[in-house]
């Protein structure tokens, strides 16, 4: 019998993963809620979530159930039960974050491979952040009548979103996402699964090929959406860029603007490299598995 058979989780095992992910990320959110923030004008340095918690879950267990459980945990524990429920806004967060984590989990084939983990972590948080940028920008776009007629607002939104995207990627994505995940996953792998009564994940486990193919669509779709959104927005700026008088502000503003865009570009690049690598590394293993 092949040891690498694709493991089918029973209904109750799925429920276990779901509840575990929900509880842990719920608690994590209550903790981040009370961590201090440093606010320098529009720049806010704060830990908005402990991304490593759901990342660890999706890397170790069934990505779908862990990815669904985590944002639900946030909504239930930190918002609903603490009397701070945001209605439809929570749904946005649920979809953005859930999708990010799901994709992250599917990108990882072998939880002992640090490169895959790092890539998964960055793309996971990246997707969440990009989607939320798209939604934020979209809201302003839709909420302000004839936005292009109001000088300055579009640029302003882009700059602020760019700053927030960059700080989020740095703090939530790297400091509280990537780094702790790389430390935790190898420590838990092979240890937490027996406590819950199932076998550790192997390359064939928990990811159906259909899911993996979907990922290859989701990632470019999100990036394209993100880039398209910014490009569209930039288009409305053309007129206004010319109006800028003092040159230093001009340069300063441009730099700010490009921070967001270049961050996106970097993540995109990394993602492409990663997918290509994944594809390459997948083939030989597939062959050995076939035996």
């Amino acid at each position, binding site marked *: 019998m092949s040891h690498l058979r694709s493991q089918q989780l*029973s209904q*109750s095992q799925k429920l276990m993963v779901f509840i575990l992910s929900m509880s842990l990320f719920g608690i994590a959110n209550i903790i981040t809620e009370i961590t201090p923030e440093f606010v320098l004008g529009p720049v806010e340095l704060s830990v908005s979530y402990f991304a490593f918690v759901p990342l660890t879950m999706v890397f170790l267990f069934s990505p779908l159930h862990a990815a669904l459980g985590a944002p639900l945990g946030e909504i239930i524990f930190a918002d609903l039960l603490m009397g701070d429920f945001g209605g439809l806004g929570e749904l946005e967060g649920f979809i953005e974050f859930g999708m990010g984590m799901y994709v992250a989990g599917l990108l990882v084939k072998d939880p002992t491979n640090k490169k895959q983990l790092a890539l998964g972590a960055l793309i996971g948080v990246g997707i969440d952040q990009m989607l939320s940028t798209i939604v934020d920008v979209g809201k302003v776009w839709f909420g302000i009548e004839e936005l292009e007629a109001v000088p300055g607002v579009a640029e302003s939104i882009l700059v602020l979103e760019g700053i927030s995207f960059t700080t989020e990627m740095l703090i939530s994505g790297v400091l509280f996402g990537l780094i702790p995940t790389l430390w935790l996953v190898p*420590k838990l792998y092979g*240890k937490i699964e*027996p*406590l819950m*009564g199932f*076998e550790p994940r192997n390359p064939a486990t928990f990811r159906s090929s259909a899911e993996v193919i979907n990922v290859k669509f989701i990632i470019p779709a999100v990036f394209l959406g993100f880039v398209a959104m910014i490009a569209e927005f930039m288009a409305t700026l053309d007129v206004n860029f010319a109006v800028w008088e003092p040159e230093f502000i001009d340069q300063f503003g441009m730099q700010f603007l490009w921070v967001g865009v270049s961050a996106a570009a970097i993540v995109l690049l990394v993602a492409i490299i990663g997918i290509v690598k994944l594809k390459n590394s997948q083939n030989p293993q597939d062959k050995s598995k076939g035996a």
Partner: protein
Amino acid sequence: MNTLISVKDLSFKYPGGTENILNRVNVEINKKDFTAVIGSNGSGKTTLCKAFNGLIPHFYVGDIKGEVIVDGLNTREHSVSELSKKTAYVYQDFENQLVRPTVFDEVTFAPLSFGMKDFKERGQLALEMLDLTSIKDEFIWQLSGGQKHLVALASVLSLDPEAIIIDEPVAQLDPVNAKKIYEKLKLLNEAYGKTIIVIEHHTEFIGEYCKKVIMMDKGQVVWQKPTKDALNNVGELIEKDIFPPQVTQAIHRLYQNNILLPITLSEGIDFLKNHPVSIAQQPYPEKVKKLPTPIVSLEGVTHGYKTLNRGMNYVFTDLDLSLYEGDRVAIVGSNGAGKSTLLKMITGIIKPKHGNVFVCGENAGNTPPEKLSEKVTYIYQNPEEMFIEDSIRKDIEYFLKVRDVPDTEQFFSKLVERFHLKEIENKDGRLLSGGQQRRSSMAIGLGMRPQVILLDEPTASLDISSRKEMLLMLEQLKDSVKTVVVATHDMQLVAEWANRVIVMDQGEIVKDGSSHDIFSDVALLEKASIQAPQIIKLGQALNLNPVPLSVDAFVSCLVAESGEEKLEIY
């Protein structure tokens, strides 16, 4: 047909396991039985009981042979849902079994989930059977441990099962609540005709309540006997690390010949009435002299928690207490008396609202716990909360390593050896057995080289042999530590180990004295809801003064009048 559960040639292996946990088990349990399943850790007790309600083989998909028939249903062919209407299960960690916010939601959850139209009536009935209607609308998180256990029982009772399985009810509860649970089980058994199966190693409860005993060892049923016969096998039980009731032990040691030994307190008292003994009076133990400077002192400490309407709920008001070198303090009192808060205050984790706490000359009120921990160590009730590293060895080393203390290798190796952790030093604490976890947590504590050591319920949920081991470790602590403080419900531990007992009731120290002082004060015991150990009650019934605190002491002050030599066999 009178058989409820019949097990035929049952063997079971967990997925990925190498050995059979159950090995050709054959056993029958009749309707309306009250059966105890005993055996040492790893003997297969819990696994067998999970086979009764279908969790094996439906939830744990392992290799299974043989069959289990419950009330005519073969567990292999019927689903867990069907079987759960026949047998109900109350877990050892029952807290995790309660899944709904309020009591009434919890007790109606199961019948509702099975779509029973009368789910409300069923929940109500279960509450009435266990006398819980007064807490019907409470939130689970407001309940005490004892109440939660009863609710867990009620929530499975609502399906009106034939049999109820309870996994170590006494392990997580204090003796008063444990007795309450057993009284309810007795009621369910006698008045409602339920079959009760308990996994238990507290033989005093078995003697008092159970009708039959199943002894398991290495995945097999060794025997199944009526309780009286079972507990009379003193030699065999002790060999399997199961200690018969103190009364039985004492009488067994006084009368070696083949008499039928008493197994409950009242039987013991009757027995001694018919078998007169002469009393060789023992002198009072010497009181410990207090040294002038206390190591820990609390001066006028007041502490409380905020309540919903922003008021304060005081745990202590104006509490004074001094602990000295050489003190072996036991703090006793019911849940919520403030024991854990007191201990945490000495560690600096909880800061007093008013008053001062001094620990080895440092003011705990303004010293961070990281600093105080160089003097005081706190051992958690749940050892799993102390395992912060991925191996026992690393956990033991953590404290000195982060402080860059040089030349510690030898010290650590000695500790590991002393606590018999050599084979498991590279394992994660969570994967160990209860006894190993306790040993590890003690070693972690001593790895900090403290002067004062604080232990929260060190003997809770230990089987008897691990408990003995624990007692020995506590005994040895005096060589390395100045003061030891234990917060506990385990009165046998108090009686046998402490030289100073502090009784707390609702945040007040109601008595501070020796074990003799405490256990001879019947009114106090009542007030603080303390159950004295059986042997002390037996001594009191015989009017022994001072009352012997342990079986050893009891035996040594009595001489059987029949003239037989008493033998030391333990």
